[in-house]
């Protein structure tokens, strides 16, 4: 935090550079008071002196939007990290900056408009380039208000991103030359669309517990609060890998660097099952890990949201995963503390709630200017202090999201993964499973939990056989369906079709009228069927092995109540 005496005009949230010896340190104006500006420096301020010069840029903190963002790894201020690495080696030196978009790469441009004195407005696609598997639309920059006349457009051909491809004229006769790249301030949502819809289509994560029980929809929001060690990040990683969307943006905000590394290093090798291309081609990583400067952490979630909105504008389904929003909130708290603002609960600033709401509100399904539908889904993890959900960040987040996947330390300790608590979590979105069937399954879980609590008090012998079977059924549902082995190549991702199929089978067991005379016998039987089911989960869907294993389940159930089978063979 520095204070600067300035002359002339400056803008709130304007970017300036502190000239400290040979370094140029980027900073953002966060408060202006007569001729004094308070600025948050995005770098380590070691070595800065009183009387150092600050240069103002006359621009709000912005990101570059254009082709070539996909597959990139940026820091919170959109500096491409691999480029910095090539230049500076192992470390991130102070004040190092690089352009987000490689201007040397040539893109094959195809115009969509004729230059027949056509009127264009912001957000209208003028042409496109092929970026990986996507048609990257080149739109009239979002900062261009009003009507413009398209004077000239480049012919189809290969151009670098910074070459002029269109010439516009406004009503006052000014001409503008447009390249493929333009910038947009990150803290301002892009709201250029015909209309915004309610989320309606399911977003498949291939995680059974989420898709079946607590679904998320495209354009919706959800949050994953959980204590440390409960598996938030693993869950996010699995989602980023298997979710059925066009583009995934991972905002690693103030978390461990090691977690990002896994994504950076592994994604190029993993094939996207849908397209057969490398997963990295549909991924953008914004990483401002915990050891990187705190102020840029605040910027990183906005950078991610802005890029997400940009791709949504092209009619694509984008999923933004923010890990973790608590670190972002803490960065806000640090800044607020330095401004000596009156602290709210747990010293978070009073505007915490509205900032969180604003951020999640950037999600949604839209109809773009050209009629294409795109969506931005936001999933944020929350790291509540002490794992206690009654803290400001979790509570503010719960108010605005559509689904809550609460992770439980008890489930994590018992190695039940994903450790989403099936009793506490909720989703306001409609899933693909029949509602009534789902309610039955949920009821078994709740009842099973009650019985389990009761058994802790009255013991197994004090529990009726009927209750005991419910308890076993709940345990069965938990171990064969809710739990999923994220490290097994097959079990890690379950398609909707398979979920529906397996869930029906699970429900058959849940609805099955078992009769036992002794509890050990009941327990043994459930262990047997559980074993068959778990093995089933590891078989490839609709393969021969899958069918063989399935027939074992059917046999088990069909033969179960026949008297001669009652005796369990050892």
């Amino acid at each position, binding site marked *: 935090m520095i204070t600067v005496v300035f002359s002339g005009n400056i803008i709130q949230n304007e970017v300036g550079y502190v000239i400290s010896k040979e370094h140029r340190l980027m900073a953002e104006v966060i408060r202006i008071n007569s001729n004094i500006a308070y600025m948050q420096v995005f770098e380590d301020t070691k070595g800065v002196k009183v009387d150092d010069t600050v240069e103002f840029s006359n621009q709000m903190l912005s990101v570059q939007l254009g082709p070539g963002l996909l597959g990139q790894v940026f820091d919170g201020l959109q500096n491409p990290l691999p480029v910095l690495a090539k230049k500076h080696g*192992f470390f991130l030196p102070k004040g190092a900056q690089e352009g987000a978009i490689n201007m040397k790469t040539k893109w094959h441009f195809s115009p969509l408009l004729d230059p027949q004195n056509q009127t264009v407005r912001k957000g209208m696609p003028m042409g496109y380039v092929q970026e990986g598997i996507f048609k990257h639309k080149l739109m009239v920059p979002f900062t261009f208000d009003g009507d413009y006349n398209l004077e000239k457009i480049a012919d189809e051909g290969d151009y670098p991103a910074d070459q002029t491809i269109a010439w516009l004229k406004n009503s006052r006769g000014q001409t503008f030359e447009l390249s493929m790249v333009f910038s947009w301030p990150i803290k301002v949502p892009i709201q250029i669309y015909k209309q915004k819809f309610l989320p309606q289509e399911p977003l498949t994560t291939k995680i059974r517990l989420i898709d079946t029980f607590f679904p998320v929809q495209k354009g919706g929001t959800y949050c994953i609060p959980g204590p440390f060690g409960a598996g938030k990040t693993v869950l996010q990683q699995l989602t980023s890998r298997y979710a059925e969307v066009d583009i995934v943006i991972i905002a690693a905000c103030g978390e461990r660097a090691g977690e990002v590394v896994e994504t950076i290093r592994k994604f190029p090798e993993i094939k996207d099952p849908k397209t057969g291309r490398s997963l990295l081609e549909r991924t953008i990583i914004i990483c401002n890990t915990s050891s990187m400067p705190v102020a840029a952490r605040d910027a990183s979630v906005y950078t991610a949201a802005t890029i997400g909105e940009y791709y949504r504008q092209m009619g694509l389904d984008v999923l933004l995963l923010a890990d973790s929003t608590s670190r972002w909130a803490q960065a806000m708290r640090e800044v607020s503390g330095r401004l000596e603002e009156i602290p709210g609960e747990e*010293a978070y600033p009073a505007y915490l709630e509205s900032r969180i709401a604003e951020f999640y509100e950037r999600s949604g399904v839209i109809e773009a200017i050209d009629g294409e539908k795109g969506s931005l889904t936001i999933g944020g993890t929350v790291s509540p202090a*002490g794992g*206690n959900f009654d803290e400001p960040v979790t509570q503010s987040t719960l108010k605005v999201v559509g689904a809550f996947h609460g992770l439980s330390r008890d489930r994590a300790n018992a190695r039940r993964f994903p450790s989403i608590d099936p009793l506490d979590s909720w989703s306001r979105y409609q899933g693909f499973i029949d509602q009534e069937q789902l309610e039955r399954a949920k009821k078994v879980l709740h009842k099973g939990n009650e019985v389990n609590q009761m058994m802790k*008090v009255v013991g*197994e012998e004090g529990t009726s056989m009927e209750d005991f079977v419910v308890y076993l059924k709940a345990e069965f549902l938990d171990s064969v369906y809710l739990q999923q082995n994220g490290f097994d190549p097959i079990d890690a991702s379950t398609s909707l079709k398979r979920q529906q199929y397996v869930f029906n089978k699970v429900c058959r067991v849940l609805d099955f009228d078992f009769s036992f005379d002794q509890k050990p016998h009941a327990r043994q039987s459930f262990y047997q069927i559980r074993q068959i089911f778990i093995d089933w989960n590891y078989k490839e869907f609709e393969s021969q092995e899958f069918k063989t294993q399935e027939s074992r389940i059917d046999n088990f159930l069909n033969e179960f109540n026949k008297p001669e089978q009652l005796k369990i063979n050892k």
Partner: protein
Amino acid sequence: MRKVYSKITSIVGNVITVKASDVAYEELAEVKTSWGTSLAQVIKLEGDVVSLQVFSGSRGISTDDEVRFLGQPMRVAFSQNLLGRIFDGSGQPRDKGPALTDNLIEITGPAVNPSKRIIPERMIRTNIPMIDVFNSLVVSQKLPIFSVSGEPYNELLARIALQAEVDMIVLGGVGLKYDQYMYFKNTLESSGALNRSIFFVHTAADPIVEGLMVPDLCLAVAQEFALGGKEVLVLLTDMTNFADALKEIAITMEQVPSNRGYPGDLYSQLARRYEKAVDFEGAGSITVLAVTTMPGDDVTHPVPDNTGYITEGQFYLRAGRIEPFGSLSRLKQQVNDKTRQDHRAIMDGMIQLYAQYKETGEKKAMGFRMSDWDRKLLKYGEIFESEMMDLSVNISLEKALDKGWKILAECFQPQETSFRSELIEKFWPKSF
């Protein structure tokens, strides 16, 4: 020659202010008092008012004492001569060796570029089954040991220091009791490990500000060795003292406290240190193990809580054993598929059963009748505790896995466990 200032305008806690110009943020200064000379660091600049944090504390400082700015931030000498040496929290020798002044390096360097990091994939064997089997330690990992005062955490650290497969050890003590410092020194000395170790020790008797420097000193030195190709293990004890020192300074500086008096940037401060753990591609690595004592055995206390969010897992030390619940090595999945086919299955399966044993134990304590299954669990739990969990067990990973199957077979039928059938066929001991 730098300018000398001799008018100290205020002394609050360990922070003094002087009026001075051309001073850089985090620059060092020397304060000369009638008691001796101490280093101090610039922590705030406001116009020409410079606030300095005095390493040896403000006691005995007179308002006309001399403050001389050194024009550079805190640095430490780096050379091979560091090995086998013991220093204090300001980098001065604590043993009888000479002070080192050549090849000075800055102690808080820039962060590592995440895109230059590599996926950790080498296990560090410690021959402690609770670590090797259940929560493997991995090169470049940062792991705290959560513990209450009185647990043998320093003994555990010393044992890991002796047994872990690394090139060298850097030990940082913050607020270490003198006898614990001697314990480390003697243990490493008697086993001949001292000459591959470097100590930076701040004892409880030293000025608190010096303790703040210890992690940075250790990690700066470790980083240089790692860049030179060494596999370095950094042991820090105890990071709660470090956080308390941060708290003390923050309160002196009248910062708004966030949680139980700790400053709002506690997370970032801790993360900046822990994130120094790294595996340099084509060079060495830094692995960090740090003791974090939990005041009142409360893991939701701000220090362990923030630590848990930063580190790649944690070991809980309770009743002299590494607790299987809660203890977690987040990186174990990177290595435990390359050891032996049954490693993961044993790791999960045995813990699931142990969890059931704990539940049964509770039921038993409440006086319920025990079923056959309960009795099996009780038997299992006891064997597991004595033959696996006990810290004195010192066997290789493979032997520990074999032992795991043996314990299971002693207590259960194969189908009572939830192992995959092919593993049971291959590993379940046939003689039972």
